[in-house]
């Protein structure tokens, strides 16, 4: 990864108002600044590809690796494993090897969005540890967490397809199926990212916790 002096950037400013439903994202602004100031980054998008994110990342001249972590999890583990919540270490390792087939420290940024919250906790921690391994020092990871609520109704939710509209705005589109969600409060998120150099929180109007973690 190399620094650049004058970033091209796909949409550096926003002359027109954002479309309906778009929300300002300070975490996205931070990661966009990182994109503008560096060249030829290798960026991971683990929320399932969409055209908006593809155009945004490649517009900076970076390379995008796309994977749908939640869908990949559903495809890899059997319904029996998922319902029982029992995942052997060997199975987890082979899932990670299949999903993150990269050399150590070879990636420069990662969009995880809300995917970690929709994985069983043991697997979510294993995924984060693997991300820590494949991300290069000083690289950034963007994740978001739905508000913690202990009522049983909110223990299932829809994962979102997060679309980058420009350097400041995101559009969150709920995906069709509801699924179990792991509750995280601020303290739990801090513990979750303990291996990272720094963690910044941004609380949105919808009570969504955005997190930028620096490797």
């Amino acid at each position: 990864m190399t620094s650049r002096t004058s970033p091209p950037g796909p949409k550096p400013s926003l002359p027109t108002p954002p479309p309906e439903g778009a929300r300002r994202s300070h975490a996205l602004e931070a990661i966009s600044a990182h994109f503008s100031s560096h060249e030829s980054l290798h960026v991971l998008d683990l929320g399932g590809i969409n055209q908006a994110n593809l155009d945004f990342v490649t517009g900076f001249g970076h390379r995008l690796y796309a994977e749908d972590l939640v869908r990949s999890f559903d495809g890899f583990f059997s319904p029996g494993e998922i319902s029982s919540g029992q995942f052997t270490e060997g199975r987890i390792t082979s899932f990670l090897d299949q999903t993150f087939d990269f050399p150590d420290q070879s990636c420069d940024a990662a969009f995880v969005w809300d995917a970690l919250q929709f994985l069983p906790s043991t697997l979510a921690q294993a995924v984060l540890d693997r991300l820590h391994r494949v991300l290069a020092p000083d690289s950034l990871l963007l994740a978001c967490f739905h508000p913690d609520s202990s009522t049983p109704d909110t223990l299932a939710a829809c994962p979102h397809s997060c679309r980058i509209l420009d350097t400041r705005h995101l559009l969150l589109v709920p995906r069709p199926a509801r699924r179990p969600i792991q509750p995280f409060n601020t303290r739990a998120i801090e513990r979750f990212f303990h291996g990272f150099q720094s963690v910044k929180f941004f609380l949105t109007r919808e009570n969504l916790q955005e997190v930028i973690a620096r490797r």
Partner: protein
Amino acid sequence: MWNRSKKEDDLPQKPAPAAPPGAEYGREAIPMSAYPTRPADFAQTRSGAAIGKSVVITGHILGKEDLLIDGRLEGDVDLPEHRLTVGSTGHVQGSVRAREIVVHGTIHGNMEASERVEIKKNARVIGDLKAQRPVIEDEAYFKGNVETIRVDTPKPAARPAAPAPQADAQPPLLPSEPKPEIRRG
């Protein structure tokens, strides 16, 4: 005219020979065909070769026409100047190189298109993608690297350099140009 045989209808329409210049002025009427003409983009819309649903091929395909795959192919496809379409029942296990690639079905392998790649809704692609214009629809599954090919627009040719003025030549003064006037007092 009314009793024309069916065979006559089936005959391919031959293009009218080109008239010599100026000949049209001597004609009283220009003969015109009443039959529908081929659309101008016939060559573009016409499908080329096709691999049917029940066909399984193992091997390398190299072609100079468009190809539609509805069956199963285990091997690479190379259509450098044409379009590859993988239909909804199509499955390709191998790398693909073409001018345009449109995927409705499944590809397990890398894709490289000099122009456009379209991954349609419900398509499934696992492999790296390199194209000038990648288009991925919602609900398509894609796993791999995406890299766009940047096409630099050719810059206009530089103007030929003006001949260097000779060292001893005096620059000509324009008639309307006022001469510098120095007043001392």
